């Protein structure tokens, strides 16, 4: 029997193989981590004068007055957070509904294939095109809708008039469309990977289709749906071009979603070209805040994700 020797030979091969790949993996990971560290270091470094001068006031102050060298980003933080949440509020129900229709067999397979393709194509459209489309198509529509809302619900502060075309509301509509593919694709994926045994269990107990979907399939897919929503939120917060073209870039705080507003990303895009000295430092400070917010959102997301995964562990 010559098997033992040849076996130990091939084992030796296996051993030397991974060493090379392991090195490669280490190298790749190190490059990634170092790049991230370097970016953050550079941002902090160039933001430093502003951090030193304004400290925490930068976060709470509403004055963005380059001529008087006074800078505060509170309205932009609010704008970033609120526009993204409003976008999620609009995109989540729609995205989840589409995901359900795509993962269950309500529609014939070819139709589902087409819808899926179309939704995924939304992700391929460049941001600036969304911005242009927003200006020419969404603004007129959202403006007339907003006017109607103001005339009916104007007494409620968040729907107060006058309604503007370039507004937080308009930006959120376009943002919602932009993040729809993220929500749909990931939710659909986790819905269709709910174990067949769970579906069958629900049907065998006499569930109607909707009872099975709402009572068993959706809860089982919850971790993936949460992940989808958080990734979408992250994407919405960082989105720059389309928002900068639509939101109005105002540093004035307003309760109404129909008023112009500003986001951190939009602020950076708009002002970086002509900024000098302290303004550059302040913009870098704003960039740092944007990074921290998105990191924070992702961390909360991870925590929720882990919690729900822990709850459903063992059924897959």
């Amino acid at each position: 029997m010559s098997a033992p020797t040849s076996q130990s030979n091939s084992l030796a091969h296996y051993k030397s193989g991974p060493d090379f790949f392991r090195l490669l993996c280490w190298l790749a990971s190190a490059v990634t981590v170092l790049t991230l560290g370097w970016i953050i270091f550079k941002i902090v470094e160039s933001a430093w004068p502003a951090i030193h001068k304004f400290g925490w006031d930068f976060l709470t102050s509403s004055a963005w007055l380059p001529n008087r060298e006074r800078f505060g980003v509170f309205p932009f933080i609010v704008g970033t957070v609120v526009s993204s949440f409003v976008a999620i509020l609009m995109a989540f129900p729609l995205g989840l509904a589409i995901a359900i229709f795509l993962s269950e067999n309500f529609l014939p397979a070819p139709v589902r294939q087409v819808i899926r393709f179309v939704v995924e194509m939304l992700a391929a459209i460049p941001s600036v095109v969304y911005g242009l489309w927003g200006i020419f198509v969404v603004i007129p529509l959202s403006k007339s809708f907003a006017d109607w809302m103001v005339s009916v619900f104007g007494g409620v502060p968040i729907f107060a008039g006058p309604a503007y075309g370039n507004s937080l509301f308009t930006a959120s509509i376009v943002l919602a469309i932009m993040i729809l593919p993220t929500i749909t694709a990931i939710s659909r994926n986790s819905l269709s990977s709910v174990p067949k045994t769970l579906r069958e269990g629900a049907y065998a107990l006499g569930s109607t289709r909707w009872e099975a979907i709402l009572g068993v399939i959706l809860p089982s897919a919850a971790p993936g749906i949460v992940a989808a929503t958080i990734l979408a939120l992250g994407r919405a917060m960082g989105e720059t071009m389309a928002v900068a073209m639509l939101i109005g870039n105002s540093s004035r705080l307003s309760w109404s979603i129909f008023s112009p507003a500003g986001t951190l990303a939009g602020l950076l895009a708009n002002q970086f070209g002509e900024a000098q000295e302290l303004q550059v430092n302040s913009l870098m400070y704003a960039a740092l805040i944007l990074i921290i917010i998105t990191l924070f959102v992702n961390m909360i997301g991870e925590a929720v994700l882990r919690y729900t995964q822990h709850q459903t562990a063992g059924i897959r």
Partner: protein
Amino acid sequence: MPIVDQQMTKQTSPNSNPPVRKDFLAAKDFNFFYGKKQALYDINIEIPERQVTAFIGPSGCGKSTLLRNFNRMNELIEGVRHEGDIRLLGKSIYDKSVEVISLRRSIGMVFQKSNPFPKSIYENVVYGLRISGQSKKSTLDEAVERSLRGAALWEEVKDRLHESALGLSGGQMQRLCIARAIANRPKVLLMDEPCSALDPIATVKVEELIRELKKEFTIVIVTHNMQQATRCSDETAFFYLGKLIEFDRTQKIFSNPSEKQTEDYITGRFG
């Protein structure tokens, strides 16, 4: 006539005081197709009330397919077709007046792989009651205790009813699935290899449970384990290549089968 004889003896047997119905669940000239592929051929079988009927046979012979036709679960698969009839208490389950939802409520099913929902133990048990509109707490509480006792799980979980069902052991999960199925108070309990993923101790528990449950339910169990069939079934049906080869008292099948194919299978010569 032997059929009448059998019915008479069963009526007087100690386990089944009320009269048992010989054709509680029955298939008549039943053919079944997955697309073009025929999986069942001319099945005629009468499953007696409050007895355990075991389905045995080599892999792919159609045991699960027939079982899943009893509660019309196979209709969830696209492109399937059947011929012939299946009757529960003499009434066709394909009758227009029969709603598949209520049919499935009256025929419980336990699967090979336990499939508790990602909910608490309590919510798993009452799932069937909730979807049939029952929400009175006292009724649900009562059903939980009755079903968990019925599934011999009550003592083990009574202090953690509101914890996730996914924290249970494999054997406990399977008994929870049995509790969930009997909470609906079904007429029939279908079990497709309910012990194949369990260790020997958990298997013994489930087998004891099956013998206990037959006082109340008509049970059909698919098994690959010959000892299990002899231990807990009264009747045994042997299937081969989509056909019902032999159906008789379990004792008879395992001691003196009429068909050569049955004998070859139970003595391990093929399958």
